[in-house]
């Protein structure tokens, strides 16, 4: 597993190449990038910050859970922090598996779950002001135990 929080450009090609092994029939890659607008409001850049030690622990547990749940062989999850401009990658998730179905399913589950539970936040800088992005509500079991 490669689990990392970085402040430099995410090297998607290298991460994906390193993940591949002979037993794999598929690598499914999700590359999350900074869009140029939110609801039509033009975005200049995003500032990402994290509760870093906890975020890393959460990312590692999610990857372990995905391997157990979907039977995929290996996973890379890399998130970038700091200031990111339009078109840059904020997160890369790559899943290697013998079969594509499991790789797609695990990849989708990983990004959806990461967005709800991994303690990372972003502030969106627009042309006319800045706001902390509304996160999705925490899953009930997290807020109340």
């Amino acid at each position, binding site marked *: 597993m490669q689990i990392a929080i970085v402040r430099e450009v995410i090297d998607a090609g290298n991460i994906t190449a390193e993940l591949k092994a002979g037993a794999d029939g598929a690598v499914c890659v999700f590359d999350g990038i900074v869009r140029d607008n939110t609801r039509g409001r033009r975005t200049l850049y995003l500032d990402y910050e994290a509760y870093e030690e906890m975020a890393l622990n959460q990312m590692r547990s999610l990857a372990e859970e995905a391997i157990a749940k979907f039977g995929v062989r290996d996973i890379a999850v890399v998130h970038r922090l700091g200031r990111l401009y339009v078109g840059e990658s904020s997160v890369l998730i790559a899943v290697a598996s013998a079969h594509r179905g499991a790789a797609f399913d695990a990849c989708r589950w990983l990004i959806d779950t990461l*967005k709800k539970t991994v303690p990372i936040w972003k502030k*969106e800088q627009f042309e006319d002001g800045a706001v902390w992005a509304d996160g999705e509500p925490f899953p009930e079991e997290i807020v109340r135990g």
Partner: protein
Amino acid sequence: MQVRVLYFGVLKELFACPSEDIEVETGCNVGELRKVFHGRMPERAWKSMAIAVNQEYAGDEVLLFEGDEVALLPPVSGGAPGDACRRR
């Protein structure tokens, strides 16, 4: 006893500091600490935050101990941008 409370995202801006040492009663749990912050932040932020103790999400029943690291976490928004916003 004292616990260290860390603030993130919008809460770090609201309190204008990344962390504070806070005095709480011995035997205090997460739910009681949560109440300490009621009224110190907008109601919506208070209702939607999660709390982590020593880097694990913690429900209201979890007991606090001297020196614990308690983090107040607004709803997270990592990953690819904007999906949550688009649904609203």
